[in-house]
């Protein structure tokens, strides 16, 4: 009984962390059709922002939930103004340019923080379920992922900014004709997406050690999750994170963590072969 609860938590945790890892990339891709390959490095910088802030005496939750997203959001803003905005509509070029940026950020982080593993301790203690100990932080990640998805939905569906954003996403020329500058909306979207990446990096930082190349571990997973999700932003994100998270954990528990990772990747190949435009091109059509 206890073990099934523990495994359920592990599964939810796997799904939640995929949602967190992919959210920033999904927003930027879904709204702007830009694939930000520096996404992983944005997460890495979120981690470093948190650790630096904690080192300066900031409360760890403030550092994670406020400082890191702001810092990374601002970096994203600069990146958008300097590089991305010149490349809108050129999907592959933006991928290459952001790939270049990711290398730049790795280099910068190496020069500033050194190529050594750093990290902070998890701020939430573990607790007991029957005969089992659970990492309390896993719950925090699950809660954060749920809050994030709900907030994203509420903003897009319930606010005027969300309405404008959705409009621009569908027909940027019409939005422009109605007097909304797509340029500024894209800028805001990229800021928001980068902030989400920073938040994800900050939240995951206490679990795993941080090195300047940490981003590489995330980008592939995020990229796969977002592409497999397909055109709908939230439905795609949640559905593909759920499928991959389940596959990963089932194989992890049945065989080993490495097989779990490989199973996730194989599932991605099969899924994309069967649904070349992603899950939401077939299911949940027209949903947000």
């Amino acid at each position: 009984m206890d073990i099934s609860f523990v495994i359920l938590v592990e599964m939810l945790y796997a799904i939640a962390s995929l949602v967190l890892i992919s959210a920033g990339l999904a927003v930027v891709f879904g709204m702007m059709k830009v694939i930000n390959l520096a996404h992983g490095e944005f997460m890495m910088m979120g981690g470093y922002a948190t650790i630096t802030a904690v080192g300066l005496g900031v409360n760890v939750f403030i550092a994670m939930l406020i400082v890191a997203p702001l810092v990374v959001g601002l970096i994203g803003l600069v990146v958008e103004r300097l590089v991305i905005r010149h490349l809108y509509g050129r999907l592959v070029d933006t991928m290459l340019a952001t790939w270049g940026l990711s290398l730049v950020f790795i280099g910068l982080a190496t020069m500033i923080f050194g190529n050594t593993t750093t990290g902070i301790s998890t701020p939430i203690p573990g607790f007991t379920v029957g005969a089992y100990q659970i990492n309390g932080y896993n719950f925090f990640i699950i809660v954060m992922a749920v809050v994030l998805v709900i907030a994203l939905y509420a903003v897009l569906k319930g606010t005027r900014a969300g309405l404008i954003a959705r409009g621009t996403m569908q027909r940027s020329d019409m939005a422009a004709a109605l007097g909304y500058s797509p340029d500024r909306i894209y800028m805001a979207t990229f800021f928001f997406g980068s902030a989400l990446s920073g938040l994800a990096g900050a939240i995951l930082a206490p679990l795993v050690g941080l090195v300047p190349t940490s981003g590489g571990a995330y980008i592939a997973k995020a990229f796969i999750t977002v592409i497999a999700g397909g055109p709908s932003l939230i439905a795609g994100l949640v559905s593909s994170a759920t499928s991959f998270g389940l596959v990963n954990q089932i194989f992890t528990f049945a065989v080993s963590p490495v097989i779990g990772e490989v199973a996730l990747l194989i599932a991605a190949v099969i899924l994309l072969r069967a649904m070349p435009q992603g899950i939401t091109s077939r299911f949940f059509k027209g949903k947000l």
Partner: protein
Amino acid sequence: MSLKRREFLGAGAALTTAALLPSAAFAADTIKLGSILDTSGIFDAYGKPMDQATRLAIAEINANGGLLGREVEIIDYDTQSDMALYSQYAQKLTRQDRVDVVHGGILSASREAIRQTMRKTDTLYFYNVQYEGGVCDRNIFVTGVTPTQQVEVLVPYAMKKSGPKVYILAADYNYGQITARWIQKFVEDNGGEVVATDFFPLDVSDFGSTITKIQQVSPDLVVAPLVGGAHLSFFRQWAAAGMNTKIPLASTTMGVGNEHKVLTSAEGDGIMVAYNYSQELDTPENKAFKEKWKAAYGDTNGIHELAVSTYQGIMLWAEGVKKAGTVDRDPVIEALETGVSIVGPAGNIAIDPQTHHATLDVHIMEVEDQKMKVVETLNQVAPVDTQAVCNLQENPDDNTQYEIEI
């Protein structure tokens, strides 16, 4: 471990100038010592202090008049934690730079990548790292501890403190694979049982499901030969789940890269280890060594098992060269085979002529408040594991790494 690049360069520059001062007295041609270490990438926590130790040792040798009246020059390459770069730089060191000796290699993977190149080119090679044992090759000298010097000591101690059911978590490459088998052997020799063994590639950093699995099996003891920066997260997640107070943990690698200083005391306390060196050793040699290190690098934070091992390896080689009166490979090997010994920061260390490994002191320790507290000391332990399979006196052409069979 937060040594900044600039400080490091500064320290290096200071040392270089110090080393250059008496250079007028040296003969024209220098002795070339090749050094090949990961000073960046995920193994830099091991490599950087080893590099510093190399420089410290050479600066000291040169300050005392060099070797045979010649200055010793370091030719070093950073392999960036990439195994492929080892074989490239090894070829450079041996074919292009034509060095007289090579000290270096950290992971067993890196040693195996360059060992044959060294042998082919008749370049004397020192591997100054604790490892899984069994390398039998006349061209190589190993100055770190091997399983019978470490695992055989650690496992009974840890089992006595916990119980007979043991779970092994090992790094997935030759070191972890072979060490896991040694652990199994010594667990069974002591009447225990290995309930499960899991291997992790070096880039795995999420151990959540593993920790759940361990609880399902509920062993009395977990032994973890995990390696590198990513695997450090295991100790964090283990503590975050509150397991560190439930199941005792022993490791054959935790601490050689000063991991116990990166972890908080709440996360690290109580982990059992066994090594040749601890900063807390109360000997005059260790105090002097720490003073020298502090003078060169500002503080003693960087010193760890592998750094001391490297320092001792270079000093042993220097003794061999002095005794042989030349840096040529064969006379130096013969001189070292007379059982050359030195008293280093970690006590007396002597070359074992039969295996080219080292006889040295071993300390059982427990991590306490980010320090390694010595619990028990065993003096002058011989590398019995390798002696059982390797005799370079009788069979000098041997070139194999023997693995334990279970």
